[in-house]
């Protein structure tokens, strides 16, 4: 099964989907991840998103495809990693995840995970309690993705979060990123 999937998507292609509800900053998170991987780590990257009539609410997503080879098809075909911050997003996109793919969920929001084989963190709640704003949950989750997968370097991600964070929120976002690294490190132990 594993080899067949590899055949389909090309050997070093890595596909990530960040999903949740509109307004959670997932497209910005996708842009940050893509910018770090592409412009600093120096790999090839394609970032796409689905625009819909729903600007807020509903399932929202940003896809990031990473490869050392040329990326032909820019959209995700079979996900290596799915981040789901809501139950709806998890239900909508879980079937796009590879059998051995990584699922990361917000453990408070996704109350019925489709599989026990997943990483759960209370991103939104942690963002509120540790940083003071729920808004930075997107950056906390980027930190965990970085720590768990190593698909992007910490240094690149930190630089981009500093650069792309809305003015005046740089410190909060960097703290959020650090929090993301930390909670993932605790799980890995």
């Amino acid at each position: 099964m594993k080899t067949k999937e590899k055949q389909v998507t090309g050997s070093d292609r890595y596909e990530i989907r960040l999903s949740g509800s509109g307004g959670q900053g997932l497209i910005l998170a996708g842009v940050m991840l893509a910018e770090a991987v592409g412009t600093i780590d120096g790999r090839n990257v394609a970032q796409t998103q689905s625009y819909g009539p729903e600007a807020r609410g509903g399932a929202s997503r940003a896809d990031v495809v990473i490869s050392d080879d040329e990326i032909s098809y820019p959209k995700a075909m079979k996900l290596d990693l799915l981040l789901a911050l809501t139950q709806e997003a998890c239900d909508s996109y879980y079937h796009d995840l590879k059998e051995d793919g990584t699922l990361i969920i917000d453990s408070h929001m996704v109350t019925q995970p489709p599989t026990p084989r997943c990483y759960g963190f209370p991103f939104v709640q942690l963002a509120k309690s540790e940083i003071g704003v729920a808004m930075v949950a997107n950056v906390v989750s980027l930190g965990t993705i970085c720590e768990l997968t190593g698909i992007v370097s910490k240094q690149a991600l930190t630089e981009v979060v500093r650069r792309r964070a809305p003015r005046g929120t740089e410190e909060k976002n960097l703290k959020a990123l650090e929090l993301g690294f930390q909670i993932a490190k605790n799980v890995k132990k």
Partner: protein
Amino acid sequence: MSNQVKLLQGNEACVEGAVLAGVRFFAGYPITPSTEIAEGMARRLPRIGGRFIQMEDEIASMAAIIGASCAGSKSMTATSGPGFSLMQENLGYAYITETPCVVVDVQRGGPSTGLPTKISQSDTMQAAYGTHGDYYAIVLAPSSVEESLHLTVKAVNYSEMYRTPVIVLLDEVLGHMREKVVIPALDEIEVQERRRPAVPPDWYKHYAITATGVSAMASFGEGYRFNVTGLTHDELGFPTAVPREIKAMLDKLKDKVVKNADAIAEFESTEMDDDPKVAILSYGIVSRAAKQAVAMAREQRLKVGAIRPKTIWPLSESKVRDLLKPVRQLIVAELNQGQLINMVKQCIDRNHTELIPLQKYDGELITPSEILHKIKEVKHHAN
């Protein structure tokens, strides 16, 4: 100086390309999914001595860029289907007055207001034949964000070299997706300027019949006198009803593009070296799915190739025939009900190559597996 590497949207890359190529005037009416081009030009142009004007609609936008170009400024606008329709009348005015300008059309679903946020390639024929009368359009279509920059530069260059409007076709996915782009330094790209008059003002003919079909162009206010009209005109620009002059002017519009078709028409081929009998022809973002499908097919030992016109129009007949020499079955994949396939029909030998349509028009991008499926179907019937 080392080159800048940026993560950009296709639309933003068009802005970079336009600025590098020397565009200093943009008039437009923002419309999804092209809005980022207007936004980018509005940010950039005032800082570099250019002008950005948001007009009351697309009719006026087109008129404004023609005027700016007559005054000597490289000019551009950007729009999507509904706005592109409104621009057609004045686009014809630019063709007949031989005024260089660039129109970027970021395609969405149509007709009419259609699907503002969904992908389509249904303006393909409109880009080549949208306005009335006999004329020959130049239409370029990038397939990546980086190429959006480079083909915008090329579009500006062609418009100046051939004194004609040039259309750049993007689509919703390419316009909005982000990829890594190496921003070239100015001395790394070729920038063309329009030919300037080499004669004294008294001898100047704004529409002089020349061997190449391209006339030198003076700007308003430089002391050269010329008339600009949408009526069919003589070499000075005054309306004519003389059959000989009418024909000469229409031949001029045709020849300057058609006689240069081999130079203008560019193609990218993938896995065509071992002469596959089956190939996929597609343009723009669809060709990215085709390339992936070819890679998947090759892994399954299916001999298939892909051909991508970077220039949708003019299609060079000799180049197309040459590329299709080994190909007995050509799958034409596109996001509409069969526009590219119609254009391709004109320049192939259908006794030699069978055309097989693969059309998707549900607002979604075609997937590599859909193309692979078609490849297998075609291969199966061939055996």
